[in-house]
């Protein structure tokens, strides 16, 4: 909060004509709102860039009379979310690009371009990111707007431009180590990568549009389909956002159970990665070991939630079902004991292996300074030594009352990312243990929640720390029973954006190790 006041003080003299307003953080999830204009947007961006703000998200909302570009910023050191908005003419939407300041905006702007038809002046490669180029209209606009004929885009799929001494390889969409259907176009010089360009959209299902056609309740199962290994965390992000929007109180017991189940889910997701990562390096056995452990969690969660993978357990104002005190807690305690032993075993099996160490140490080094440009988060940013974790920065559920440490790495290489995730499993076990100890009795849901939610007019940004990083959901409500606009900020998206940077000039084997160390989930990127 202190930072927000400081920013206002510094901002006002520099931009006299620009409106800056403080916003009730508890209600809307951000601190400051700035209304920029095309003329001074770049100056404002520069102002924020100088103060080490990273870009959380960039998207567009169609208010019919105007299009609104929304830029979300915050810092890694202290939470101070700033919403910068820019109104555009819906007939001729043109905005300046900020991709030369924030690299990740290159993708965000391409996304806005294909969904809303906004043009970004100075963008290096304004082609479609997710959609097929023959779609013919802009899907997220409220009215049908056809793509002008002169603007039918070139295939974003690749036009190979073969040069001497280099060739192209399509890594994916069907490839054993792209974890889903990611496609990366590699330009190679022998075994070395000259450049790598991810091509997205093979799993694009337009969840954001689906949200506009469903009531708040009906959308509940969707978030789980975005990030299937960490379904509960996405579920939580959405449920909490709607609760904040409608002002629904959640009983303490529900908060604790949410924390416990979310951490179980986090471990399950990390175990899935623990299986897949060594498999990328050619070791196939840890996969089965990790799945053996993961099975225990799935059994526990199945008992509570009723499903094993794409959970939909949280409801507005509480939970779908109370836990069974005896079986759930017993099983969880047994699992914690077992997992602690297994972590020692993993350490012996994987961490100490000479080949493994030589394959991942000092490979794929991300510097802390790049976090601002790319906006990567989660274990990827923590591996660079920055203790940035939404659970601490912006405590939600019961994380505020549970004490836990944030494991960090040193140099941000693949080894650090591996070690950070392994330590995170340990930390999660501690959180679960603490949560069970403090689990209060009482109701598990609020009774007063209406069947048909009609939140008051307004917007809300809510973020949680999913297994891969900062996951945020932004909802605009127009008092109807369906969201006017819903936007998902997904961590793998910005994590993957760093891949072209890291893959330049390395061996293909190292590039695949790096890709594996990110723990990307493609359905989450494509949404």
């Amino acid at each position, binding site marked *: 909060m202190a930072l927000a006041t400081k920013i206002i003080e510094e901002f006002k003299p520099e931009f006299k004509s620009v409106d800056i307003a403080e916003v009730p953080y508890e209600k809307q999830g951000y601190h400051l709102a700035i209304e920029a204009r095309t003329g001074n947007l770049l100056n404002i961006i520069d102002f924020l860039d100088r103060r080490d703000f990273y870009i959380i998200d960039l998207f567009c909302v169609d208010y019919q009379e105007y299009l609104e570009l929304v830029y979300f910023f915050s810092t890694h050191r202290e939470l101070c979310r700033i919403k910068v908005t820019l109104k555009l003419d819906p007939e001729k939407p043109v905005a300046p690009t900020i991709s030369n300041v924030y690299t990740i905006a290159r993708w965000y702007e391409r996304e806005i371009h294909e969904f809303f038809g906004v043009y970004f002046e100075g963008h290096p490669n304004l082609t479609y990111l997710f959609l097929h180029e023959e779609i013919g209209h802009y899907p997220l606009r409220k009215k049908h707007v056809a793509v002008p004929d002169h603007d039918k885009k070139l295939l974003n799929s690749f036009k190979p431009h073969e040069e001497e001494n280099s*060739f192209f390889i399509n890594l994916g969409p069907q490839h054993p180590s792209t974890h889903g259907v990611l496609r990366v176009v590699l330009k190679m010089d022998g075994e070395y990568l000259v450049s790598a360009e991810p091509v997205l959209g093979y799993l694009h299902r337009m969840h954001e549009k689906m949200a506009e056609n469903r009531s708040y309740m009906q959308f509940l199962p969707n978030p789980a389909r975005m990030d299937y290994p960490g379904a509960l965390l996405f579920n939580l992000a959405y449920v909490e956002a709607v609760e904040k929007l409608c002002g629904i109180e959640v009983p303490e017991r529900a908060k604790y159970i949410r924390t416990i189940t979310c951490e179980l889910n986090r471990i399950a997701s990390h175990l899935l990665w623990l299986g897949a990562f060594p498999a990328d390096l*050619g070791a196939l056995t840890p996969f089965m070991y990790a799945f053996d452990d993961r099975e225990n969690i799935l059994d526990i969660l199945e008992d509570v939630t009723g499903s094993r993978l794409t959970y939909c357990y949280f409801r507005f104002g509480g939970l779908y079902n109370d836990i069974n005190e005896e079986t759930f807690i017993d099983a969880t305690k047994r699992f914690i004991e077992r997992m602690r032993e297994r972590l020692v075993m993993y350490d012996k099996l994987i961490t100490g292996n000479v080949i493994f160490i030589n*394959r991942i140490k000092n490979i794929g080094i991300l510097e802390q300074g790049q976090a601002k440009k790319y906006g990567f988060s989660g274990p990827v940013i923590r591996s660079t030594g920055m203790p940035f974790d939404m659970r601490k920065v912006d405590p939600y559920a019961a994380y505020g009352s549970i004490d836990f440490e944030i494991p960090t790495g040193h140099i941000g290489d693949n080894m650090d990312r591996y070690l950070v995730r392994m330590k995170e499993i340990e930390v999660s076990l501690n959180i679960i243990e603490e949560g069970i100890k403090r689990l209060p009795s009482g109701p598990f849901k609020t009774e007063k929640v209406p069947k048909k939610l009609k939140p008051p007019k307004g917007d809300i940004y809510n973020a949680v720390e999913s297994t891969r990083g900062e996951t945020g959901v932004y909802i605009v409500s127009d008092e109807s029973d369906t969201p006017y606009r819903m936007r998902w900020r997904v961590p793998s998206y910005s994590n993957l954006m760093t891949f072209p940077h890291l893959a330049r000039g390395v061996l293909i*084997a190292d590039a695949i190790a790096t890709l594996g160390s990110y723990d990307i989930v493609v359905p989450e990127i494509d949404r």
Partner: protein
Amino acid sequence: MCDTIINIVNIVGKEVVRTVVGLIGVFIVVLGNAIMLTWTERKVAGHIQRRIGPKEVGPFGLLQSFADSVKLLGKELLTPANVEKPLYYLAPTLIFVPVLVTFVVIPFDGFLQVKDINTGILVILAFSSLTVLSILIGGWGSDNKYSLIGAVRSVAQNIAYEIPLLLSLLPIIFMANSFSLRDIAEAQRGVWFVVYQPIAFLIFFVASVAETNRTPFDLPEAESELVAGFHTEYSGMRFSLFFLAEYTNMFIVSAIAVTFFLGGYQGPVLPGVVWFFIKTYALVFVLLWFRWTFPRVRFDQLLNFSWKILIPVSFLNLLVTGGILKI
């Protein structure tokens, strides 16, 4: 009946009959070995990974490999559109030539050998280099970039590892004073050569893992990088021929290691041939064990390991052995 056989033998000559019978025996061993090894590998993998492995077909799933072979035989032989047809067809067949020839000189027992050639080891080394040729033309002919990278990797790897392989066998040839495999096995009647040459044994074993493209040196077919490497475009029986050759190669390198370092068919009580197979499969088991325990090395690490460590060390070992023998 007996007379007829003896008559036939007299007419065509003893050597011819011996060779024909031997070759038939080799075929049986090759096929039996491949079928046994696929089953063993899956069982070993299963137990290492806390699974059971195949168990449905036959007792302990023993007939699983037969069921699989029938399935593979029944599959359509798919030929991708743009392949270089002669090369594409030739590769899986060619990979079997060295496999069969090398079997000829391996002594399974004192007299159980198809033919004792007095330059036996040279035959083995010369022909085993042919394997890489068929991998190269298979990868080249497939018209697939992954296959090509796999094939090129395979060539570089084989050149790098053939040298330490040969250098680690030379001290043994000095000590036994012969190139014939039977003489070498006979020379170990008292003490196995592994006692005199532990370093050479280690180098040979490491190099032979690389020669057979097994983890941690399975770069030509690294599935997380190159999908399936040189055999990406092969399916059905053609694919299984590559597979068969890989298992046979595993057997051969283990058999050579046994003959050179572990006393060959020598052993108390049990007949020689039993000892030979026990020792060979023990080594094969170690190869399987490697595969399900280690990650894969990177390509530059693989080459550096050979050129900077294995080759200098094996040269040194050779020099020391030569010096000691001279004194």
